């Protein structure tokens, strides 16, 4: 078993340098270590100034997304043993502005997320006395996959269209819009379709499909967007053929 592994980590210290640079660290190799463990080892023993985000270290908080050997990954779920013998390249996520080292600014994503109204919209809220909204297993199944998203933004970092067209609402936000559209309790689909039919919505997507491949939670945002396009197209046909109000 190899005793150590080399990490090549992107550093960016805005108070010192105007462009990111590369730093090389040797960390002990442990079979049960993930890239995040190695980064924490660096921070604890080699260089305390290295900055990166993490919280849960178990794939639920979505804050430890970085590029590992060129592809977007949750570093808490990427074992060193999968990238042997190294060196392992660790970079911040693509297409987001880098704040420092491996930390990116996510406010663009947060803005977009809010834009698609990812919450249950009702015309009339049912009075509490009438009890909860019931849902069958099939109804739950219709949106469950899309509800697994942890907002890790790996899909954005994998999407060349987002890189080229920063206004594009992007994979996770559209998948989450779909999550609420498909929810039997929700009545907000027309509102969301309105928003997502705009120039920076679903029609920007050319189905590269990488978002789905990198998603650690199997959300399938690419599928969500194509299904949304079909809905949008059918809606368009209806609005053409049927008189107003009959839709």
């Amino acid at each position: 078993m190899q005793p150590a592994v080399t990490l090549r980590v992107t550093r960016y210290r805005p108070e010192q340098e105007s462009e990111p640079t590369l730093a090389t660290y040797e960390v002990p190799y442990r079979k049960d270590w993930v890239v995040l463990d190695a980064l924490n080892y660096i921070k604890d023993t080699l260089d305390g100034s290295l900055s990166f985000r993490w919280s849960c270290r178990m794939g639920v908080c979505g804050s430890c997304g970085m590029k590992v050997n060129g592809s977007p990954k949750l570093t808490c779920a990427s074992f060193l043993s999968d990238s042997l013998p190294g060196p392992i390249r660790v970079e911040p996520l693509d297409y987001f502005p880098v704040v420092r080292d491996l930390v990116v600014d996510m406010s663009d994503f947060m803005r977009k997320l809010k834009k698609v109204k990812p919450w249950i919209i009702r015309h009339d809220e049912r009075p509490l006395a009438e009890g909860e909204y019931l849902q069958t297993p099939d109804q739950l199944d219709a949106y469950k996959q899309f509800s697994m998203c942890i907002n890790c933004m790996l899909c954005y970092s994998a999407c060349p269209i987002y890189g080229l067209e920063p206004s594009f609402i992007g994979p996770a936000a559209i998948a989450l819009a779909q999550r609420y559209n498909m929810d039997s309790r929700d009545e907000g689909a027309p509102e969301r379709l309105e928003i997502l039919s705009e120039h920076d919505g679903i029609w920007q997507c050319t189905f590269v499909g990488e978002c789905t491949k990198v998603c650690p939670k199997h959300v399938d945002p690419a599928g969500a967007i194509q299904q949304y396009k079909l809905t949008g197209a059918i809606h368009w046909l209806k609005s053409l053929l049927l008189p107003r109000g009959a839709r």
Partner: protein
Amino acid sequence: MPRSITPFLWLLFSAGGTVAALLFPIHILLTGLAVPLGWVNAPSYESVLGLVRNPVARLYLFVFVSLPLFHWAHRFRYTLYDGLQVKHLTALIVVFCYGTALAGTVMAAYLLWTIP
């Protein structure tokens, strides 16, 4: 009223992609390779004409040419747009792509209408 025709163009793209996926391989194999290379005997002029005289065949050929052209227009447009990063030429690209598809469609209709 519908705000933009993007959904419609996407429908044409999808329909054309399906037609091309299902039918183009066999047609290219027959017309472009099997017949010229002598793997099969070329159907005679009369038999091809006889086939094309059939109204169903005419409709088939119209769909066969037109929809895949719109499929191409859509994909090619976005490939130029994203691949070459030529945002400033968008209008030109759109006119070129969908214009070509439209011209091909009109030509197919004309030819199929006039073939005796």
